[in-house]
């Protein structure tokens, strides 16, 4: 009988990412005393994850797992599910997990909820809730297969503080063969001007049509973003006008983002833009038009011209963050 929760803990060179703690904390509250197993692929150790809710840690290591390949990730998850027999598997909605999980779901005949933002235990099941239509609607995801798979949008749940407990760590041997071994990552390319991917960014400063030119974007939006350690974003209008590249576009036809702080400068707030950023924790709107729809979602609205406000805000933030 399937019970408990398996959590895919992503890591950076062995150090668990923030999403690992976030998911373990949530898993512990959902499990109601059932086991919570942390799965580390391509890393050893992780006993400290016990402090965040894991009751056991599994390490899958070996030459097949030194880089993140779709096939090896699927094989490791499949083996961990067979070993642990969980009722629920949680993973961050990272590009890697969103690549591997549908393949895993098809292999084991399981239901998958993509990028849920809420999870609740109800009647012995875990039910997810997820944005659809680029964030314009939400729906419950009810999964009836014996194991339910969910990828979870980053920052959906609070970061737990460690209790200091340690969880037992064991190794799980996994062989990667056949189609799983056939496709490989052979290299990586770093894009030159992107600080952090928008979907992973904790702070975003976006510019809209009112930046008026690529030069306006570079002089108003980028310095403000730099002062905050934020990722520069843009509205579709700004991208269509050529002020910023498509990789910066926030909204239904660009990236859906979930940062702690989102600053929208000169963005009126078209419905498809609001859909992509409305779950941001704090939204700041800077716009000359006090009736612009962006003010309806803003935590703080500044009625003013971005060409005046942005440089002042950049300097004020530099001073505040330095002190």
């Amino acid at each position: 009988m399937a019970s408990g929760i398996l959590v895919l803990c992503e890591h950076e060179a062995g150090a668990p990412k923030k999403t690992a703690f976030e998911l373990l904390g949530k898993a512990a509250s959902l499990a109601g005393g059932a086991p919570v197993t942390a799965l580390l692929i391509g890393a050893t150790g992780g006993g400290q994850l016990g402090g965040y809710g894991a009751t056991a840690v599994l390490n899958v290591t070996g030459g097949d797992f030194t880089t993140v390949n779709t096939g090896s990730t699927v094989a490791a998850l499949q083996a961990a599910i067979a070993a642990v027999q969980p009722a629920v598997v949680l993973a961050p909605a990272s590009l890697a997990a969103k690549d591997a999980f549908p393949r895993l779901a098809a292999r084991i005949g399981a239901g998958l909820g993509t990028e849920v933002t809420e999870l609740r235990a109800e009647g012995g099941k875990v039910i997810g809730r997820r944005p659809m239509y680029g964030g314009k609607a939400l729906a419950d995801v009810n999964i009836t297969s014996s194991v339910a798979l969910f990828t979870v949008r980053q920052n959906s749940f609070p970061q737990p503080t460690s209790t200091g407990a340690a969880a037992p760590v064991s190794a799980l041997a996994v062989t990667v063969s056949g189609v799983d071994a056939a496709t490989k990552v052979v290299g990586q390319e770093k894009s030159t001007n992107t600080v952090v991917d928008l979907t992973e960014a904790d702070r975003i400063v976006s510019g809209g049509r009112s930046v008026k030119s690529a030069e306006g974007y570079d002089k108003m939006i980028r310095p403000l973003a730099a002062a905050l350690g934020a990722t520069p974003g843009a509205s579709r209008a700004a991208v269509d006008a050529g002020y910023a590249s498509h990789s910066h576009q926030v909204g239904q036809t660009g990236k859906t983002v979930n940062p702690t702080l989102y600053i929208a400068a000169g963005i009126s707030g078209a419905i498809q833009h609001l859909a992509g950023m409305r779950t941001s924790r704090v939204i700041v709107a800077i716009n000359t038009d006090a009736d612009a729809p962006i003010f309806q979602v803003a935590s703080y609205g500044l009625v003013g011209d971005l060409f005046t406000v942005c440089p002042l805000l950049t300097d004020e933030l530099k001073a505040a963050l330095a002190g």
Partner: protein
Amino acid sequence: MKVGVCLKQVPVSDSRIKIGASGAGIDMAEIKFEINAYDENALEEALKLKDGGKATEVVVLTLGGAGTETMLRDALARGADRAVRLDDPSFAGADSLGVAKALAAVVQSEGLGLVLCGRHAMDDDNAQVPAMVAELLGWAQATVVSQLELGAGSFKAWRAAGGGVRDIVEGSLPAVISADKGLNTPRSANLKGIMAAKKKAITVLSADKVGVGNLGASAVVKLTNFGLPPARPTGKVLRGEPAAMVKELVSLLRNEAKVI
């Protein structure tokens, strides 16, 4: 090599979404539809392969009612050779795995060697079907691809890996590739293409013809309790002298919101 392209018709991106009666779904009454934007990149890549002599035929596939034929006709006008529409009352309520089963069956019966899809559909935002089709066929996959090179029996794909990094993935054909926006610039249909498309075939297949059972009944994922996103609490609006507003904002971000 015959190349397949999976297309989906979705609400236009500036649609205002309303919830249907008792939260059972979306009220589609006033919605206008368009081809999913990422599917246009998938189609363009297939057409480029045909232009370059690497594809012998481009077949577009969709699962949907007669209303999707405008989209299929547009794809034929852009240069696709044939269209296959999968349509059956039993498809209602199918989950991603069900849709993938139907598509995989047609990919097999059509003898396709490469399938291109959009990275996700801008309605359910699931991003599941491409990798599921690959798994069901036992094929290689590369998702969220912004650059693609085909060799003899092999592919090289640049896929988004997060943090501004692209993974370069190598594998063997046959494969399923899901397209990101940067892959290419989709063409529009020209008049000659529109005329030619009128003579091209759209084949309609029922569940029996596809060779799948009742996909609605076998779904393991059910969506319920549809709702609109909760309204955000009313914020503070600052007006007046810019320098004073900026000082107040920084103070609010630090002391009230505690985000800096």
